[in-house]
């Protein structure tokens, strides 16, 4: 029998760590949605096509700068020394995913706003243009954006992918929290972000054709996400004792029910079946499956952030003798 006592009772660390609260999963979720919207918007602009986008779809890229601002606000709320947030922008730390993230977030704004502006219907742009016409530089920027829309679209895909991947890498590079410590978290969060981004767009009044094509894409994305989740679990299950111990929190441990029902069953399998049925019967995809995908994407980050913090390196007792 082993029994240990520890005089350390540091709040938020003992007995299990919970320094990152609700703000972080909310930010990671919004970051994923934004990554998805930016990539999907970039792809739409590059593909072009003859069909005029629906009013809702043409305004959709605006969701990126708005949602990322909300997400960054939550991130800022999580800081214990929030008025030192500007310190992120006095340096660049190559080894720190959070430093990468800070700069990526800064890059998200110009490329997403410019692309959103280019795609905005002329009737909405005209009055704004009139108001700001005395700022010649803005008109020059608009001109540049209109000429370089293809470049802007590519930059949206690049920045969106960077944002989506970094939110996973941020957790994945922490060897101290074995549940997170997988390189698959980057692609997992990116694909989940694309899926939730598509689902977010389906909440709005898109055309039937747009709904069908987004829903088709989402089916593939959910399939890839399920595969990545399985690979992530395989990696942990066949890893060392720390990895195996970490995986146990969703295999019989305290997060088992939440993970398998909210993330896998309701967040991935149910919408996948729903979208497939809609597709099979030629129905226009509704909002029900989209809401499930969004809740599933949020549950994935919520559970991973909390469950991951509860895991740790377990070699301590073995190395004692």
């Amino acid at each position, binding site marked *: *029998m*082993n*029994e*240990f*006592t*520890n*005089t*350390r*009772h*540091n*709040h*938020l*660390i*003992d007995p299990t*760590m919970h*320094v*990152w609260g609700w703000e972080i999963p909310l930010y990671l979720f919004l970051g994923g949605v934004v990554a998805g919207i930016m990539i999907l918007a970039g792809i739409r602009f590059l593909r072009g096509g003859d069909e005029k986008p629906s009013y809702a779809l043409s305004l959709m890229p605006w969701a990126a700068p708005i949602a990322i601002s909300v997400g960054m606000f939550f991130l800022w709320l*999580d*800081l*214990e*020394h*929030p008025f*030192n*947030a500007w*310190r*992120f922008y*006095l*340096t660049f*730390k190559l*080894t*720190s*995913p*959070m*430093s990468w*993230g*800070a700069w990526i977030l800064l890059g998200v704004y110009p490329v997403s706003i410019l692309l959103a502006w280019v795609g905005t219907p002329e009737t909405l742009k005209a009055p704004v243009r009139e108001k700001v016409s005395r700022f010649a530089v803005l008109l020059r920027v608009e001109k540049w954006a209109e000429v370089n829309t293809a470049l802007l679209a590519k930059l949206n895909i690049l920045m969106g992918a960077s944002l989506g991947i970094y939110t996973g890498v*941020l957790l994945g*590079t*922490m*060897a*101290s*929290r074995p549940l997170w410590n997988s390189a698959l978290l980057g692609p997992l969060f990116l694909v989940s972000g694309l899926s939730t981004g598509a689902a977010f767009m389906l909440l709005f009044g898109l055309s039937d054709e747009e709904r069908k094509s987004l829903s088709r894409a989402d089916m593939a994305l959910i399939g890839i996400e399920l595969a990545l989740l399985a690979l992530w679990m395989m990696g942990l299950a066949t890893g*060392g004792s720390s990895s195996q111990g970490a995986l146990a929190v969703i295999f019989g441990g305290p997060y088992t029910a939440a993970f398998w029902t909210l993330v896998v069953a309701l967040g991935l399998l149910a919408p996948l079946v729903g979208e497939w049925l809609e597709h099979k019967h030629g129905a226009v995809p509704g909002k029900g499956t989209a809401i499930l995908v969004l809740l599933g994407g949020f549950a994935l980050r919520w559970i991973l952030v909390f469950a991951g*913090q509860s895991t*740790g*390196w377990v*070699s*301590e*007792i073995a*190395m*004692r003798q």
Partner: protein
Amino acid sequence: MSGVRYGMAIDTRTCVGCAACVIGCKTENDTAPDFSRDWIYTLLEGEYPNIRMNIRSERCNHCEDAPCVTVCPTGSSHYGPGGSVQVNPDKCSGCKACITACPYDARHIDPRSGAADKCTFCMHRLEAGIPTTSCQEICPTKSIYMGDLDDPNSEISRALATRDWYVLKPDAGTKPKHFYLR
């Protein structure tokens, strides 16, 4: 302090777990209420009457490859004098990445400043020419060794050369400079 590489060792045979080091540190460093930079870990093994007890005074391991420094986005966590790991509270945003990155859970947020906090190896004492840390100074069984790992004649180097020792979680790859003599 160039050319010095500080390390610490605890003699687990003589440490009785009195926690004077915890109180000494708290007094010297004025840590936040309810938080401490060092602590006592006690492991009881076996079935009565065949039991043995392992007692350690633990703190930041001042790792040579410190994950807290790796993940810090602002450069607040950094390698300081004598290879120690230090926090610059003026640069800290309180993002807590270092706390989650530390395999030893050695860090906390000081609620008074919002900055990350942990053992400094009492660098303010060492730099002032006081040769001991506060935990070492107060230890009634003289179980804490602190000194230059690169000097073969330092007390800690001699102890590590002649005694059996271990470090915590060596497979985490952090190269800790905090040793436990047995």
